[in-house]
């Protein structure tokens, strides 16, 4: 269920009028998601789902109780307010209690398009048809998913804050597998504006990558030079930024903890060319206007020219440490360069071109050792040329080492995320040496 700013504010006002607590916050989220999946060139499942949730947090005597409901009628709202107050009274006093925010200034990005928001499933079927037709044309089986989302987020407090943000999203991702079921390729894109989604390009790239009939070669485990396409780079950068939490660093349980105590803020840990920035006004990957508790998202760098400049921080930890509260981010931009993927490949004597990664997971939080596998388009590079499709490999790679040894970067590109997840980061292709493949996989 999609609500306008006025409708959301009316509900928030109704909640705040019911509240008998010392303070109260109201979070309302919802929208309409539509998706369509296809496999082996034909439709499988689809859905349209209208979601809505109202979360009320009552603050009583330094305690916070929360109650959520999908019903917005008067009776349900009153019951939820009363229940949140009942919960708050039963809880222990929070020693680090933080009162709700008052009015804030937000930087709003342009992430909403009425035409995209009003798309129906037939538009997704049309996008899927492009992939299916291209697959049929060049003789590969096609699989994929197309999704649109129309979402809103509202946040209000008894201290006078009302924040509202909305977005429209569309994504298309496609996998192409050869008819022997022995090789696969993938491509995908996410946009806030449907007219920026190039379904034909996604179809072409996925099908071209999947159209290899040669038997893939096996590579022995070891350290290799790799060219990571932007999707793969994004996944690695996402894990890096996800672990940049101030409290864990301050408490000594993080890669970003300074031996002996404190966080490694200001330390130059990475290659000079690495910067990770967030900005609600960024044209490529605009972040939402606000994060948790209504805290504004601002233009800031988490890593600037290889140095750690920002760690995200909850309001309670910020208050306790006298530092600024920094919300977690979903849309970040990794700085790029001007080296094309073709030029990167030309510079490699022996290595691997990696399309994307799969099932990545942190193995060791101190060293940021990450494991995972390559997927949907590994190619062996020899003497500056792609010479063969290559079977997938598992890697075990320390992210600190990886981002400290960047050899080349391509132009930063917006990458894929499923619509409904709040956006997508932007990252470049990246050439690195010494990437540690630890075992072979037969998974195609």
């Amino acid at each position, binding site marked *: *269920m999609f609500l306008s700013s006025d409708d959301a504010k009316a509900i928030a006002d109704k909640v705040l009028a019911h509240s008998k607590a010392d303070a109260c916050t109201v979070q309302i989220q919802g929208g309409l998601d*539509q998706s369509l*999946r296809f*496999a*082996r060139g*034909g439709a*499988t*499942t*689809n*859905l*349209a*789902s*209208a979601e*809505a949730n109202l979360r009320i947090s009552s603050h009583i005597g330094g305690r*916070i109780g929360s109650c959520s*409901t*999908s*019903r917005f009628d008067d009776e349900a709202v009153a019951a*939820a307010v009363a229940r949140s107050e009942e*919960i708050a009274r*039963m*809880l*222990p006093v929070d*020693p680090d209690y933080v009162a709700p925010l008052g009015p804030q200034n937000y930087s709003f990005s342009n992430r909403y398009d009425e035409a995209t928001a009003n798309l*129906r*499933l*037939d538009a997704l079927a049309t996008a899927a*048809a492009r992939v299916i037709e291209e697959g049929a044309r060049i003789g590969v089986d096609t*699989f994929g998913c197309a*999704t649109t989302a129309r979402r809103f987020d509202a946040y209000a407090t008894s201290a006078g804050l009302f924040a509202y943000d909305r977005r429209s999203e569309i994504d298309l*991702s*496609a*996998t192409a*597998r050869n008819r022997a079921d022995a090789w*696969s390729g993938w491509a995908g894109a996410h946009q806030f504006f449907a007219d920026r989604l190039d379904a034909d390009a996604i179809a072409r790239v996925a099908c071209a990558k999947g159209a290899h009939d040669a038997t893939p070669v096996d590579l022995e485990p070891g350290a290799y030079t790799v060219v990571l396409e932007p999707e793969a780079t994004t996944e690695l950068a996402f894990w890096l930024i996800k672990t940049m939490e101030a409290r864990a660093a301050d*408490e000594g*349980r993080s890669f970003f903890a*300074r*031996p*002996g105590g404190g966080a490694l803020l200001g330390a130059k840990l990475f290659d000079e060319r690495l910067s990770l920035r967030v900005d609600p006004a960024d044209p490529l990957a605009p972040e939402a206007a606000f994060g948790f508790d209504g805290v504004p998202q601002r233009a800031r760098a988490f890593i600037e020219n290889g140095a750690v400049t920002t760690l995200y921080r909850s309001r*309670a930890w910020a208050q306790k440490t006298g530092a600024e509260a920094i919300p977690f981010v979903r849309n970040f931009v990794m700085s790029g360069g001007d080296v094309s993927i073709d030029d990167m490949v030309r510079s490699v004597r022996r290595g691997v071109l990696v399309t994307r990664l*799969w*099932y990545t997971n942190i*193995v*060791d*939080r*101190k*060293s940021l050792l990450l*494991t995972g596998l390559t*997927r949907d388009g590994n190619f062996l590079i020899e003497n500056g040329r792609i010479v063969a499709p290559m079977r*997938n490999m*598992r890697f075990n790679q320390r992210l600190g080492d990886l981002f400290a040894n960047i050899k080349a970067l391509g132009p930063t590109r917006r990458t894929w995320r*499923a619509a*409904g997840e709040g956006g997508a980061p932007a990252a470049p292709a990246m050439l690195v040496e010494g990437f540690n493949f*630890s*075992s072979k*996989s*037969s*998974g*195609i």
Partner: protein
Amino acid sequence: MAPAATPSTVETSCYRGRNAFSLNRALLYDLADIVLTAARRNGASYADVRIGETRREYAFAKDDRLENFDERASQGFGVRVLLDGCWGFYGARRLDPQSLRDGVERALENARAVKPIQFQPIALERLPAHEAEWIMPMGVDPFEVSASEKADLLLSIIASARDHGADFCSASLSATCEERFFANSLGSRIHQTRTRVAPNFQATAIDRASGRFATRDCLAPARGAGWDYVVGVGLIDEAAQAGAEARAKLDAKPVAPGDYDIVIDPTNLWLTIHETVGHSTELDRVLGWEANFAGTSFVKPHMLNELQFGSELMTIVADRAQPGALATIGFDDDGAPAEVAEFAIVEKGVFRNFQMALGQAHLIGLSHSNGCAYADSPTTFPIQRMPNISLKPNPGKCSFNDLINDVENGIYVVGAGSWSIDQQRDNFQFGGQLFYEIKNGKLGDLLRDGAYQGRTTQFWNSLSGLCDASAYHLDGTFTCGKAEPVQLAPVSHGSPPALFRNVRVLNTSDDA
């Protein structure tokens, strides 16, 4: 079936616990009739509707703070129609008659929308109709327990861990109650309700001089159970042990990488069963329906009754009946009864059955699916999901000491750690919470920074020992992710401790 006076909304006891159904049945029948009549009138050859309420509670504490306590109740419906061989689905968070009428229209519209790319019509087997009620047996309803009692438990768990060696500790409690009404155009009318709970904590110890740190996670599993399970599982004692073990891990010997005989505790093996056997034998993956996201499988239809998945000791069964298990229920989300979900996936090492949802069996020449559908909300499309999938214990006598008795140089792995597996469910790597040496048949020192790597059938064919039923343990998760958009399913996996020969073990630390 409609009552004389029909209420205009579904009344619920939104914020109170229950051990029975709370949704207004008369209205549910009326709403179902609205949907099924409209679907039939508009040409749908099949239709079903799920109406329900899900209640969740989540409490989280870290060190001396209760950081979050949230109760959530959400209602909704989902209409699925089959029109001219095309599925159409629409779900929403409203339960008034007009919303369901609109829902049918949108579901039909969606079915028409996909017609241009529906080259192979969806075909369904005819499931028998059922009129039934199923309520999960439960002791104390967790939603009836006060917030203060839950907060006290979390803070006591944390204090216990910190008193015994942890520098930091976080703890959480999750509870979910699903109440569902299912009706289809074949005549089924099914009410079901079930509750599940998941206690959790993580103890962290730090060596400030070296900057190293170690964690030890809770080993108490999520269960289909009530508050009595949470209270009785011994969380405070376990937290004390975890605090001490997190501290001990800092000074433990690093694992020496190499090939070992490993004995895997059920607290770790459940996840390996889940990833390597559970997912690889899902027919929708095999058919390619998950190729774009969750992946396909190394298992193919021609391997039925042929593939030597594991050693003769390996018998893996599916069920929806184990008491306390997370996928235990009377009927799946296609309306298939639990009895059809009782089957062997692997029998004495040989692959015997895929898991299937409605409309899949005929694609590999079989007549009927086997009760493996689940939708994580009434507003989402039901897809093939796992029932409980478990490794049968040794039918003969075998204690833990018997199991490790002939292990000369091995490692005992306890608790689930970092996990990863390829998209065809072949190459995997799993960490753990605790690793112990096994030397000459005896359990030895604590080790740190271990993980094991393998290939699925090679690994299961190296299974060479199993404990008997006295060591059987049921574990599981609330959050198995699959599909686009991602759906989260609860599922349990039971096993005894098991011995695998010549498994590759890694050292994951800085000083490896």
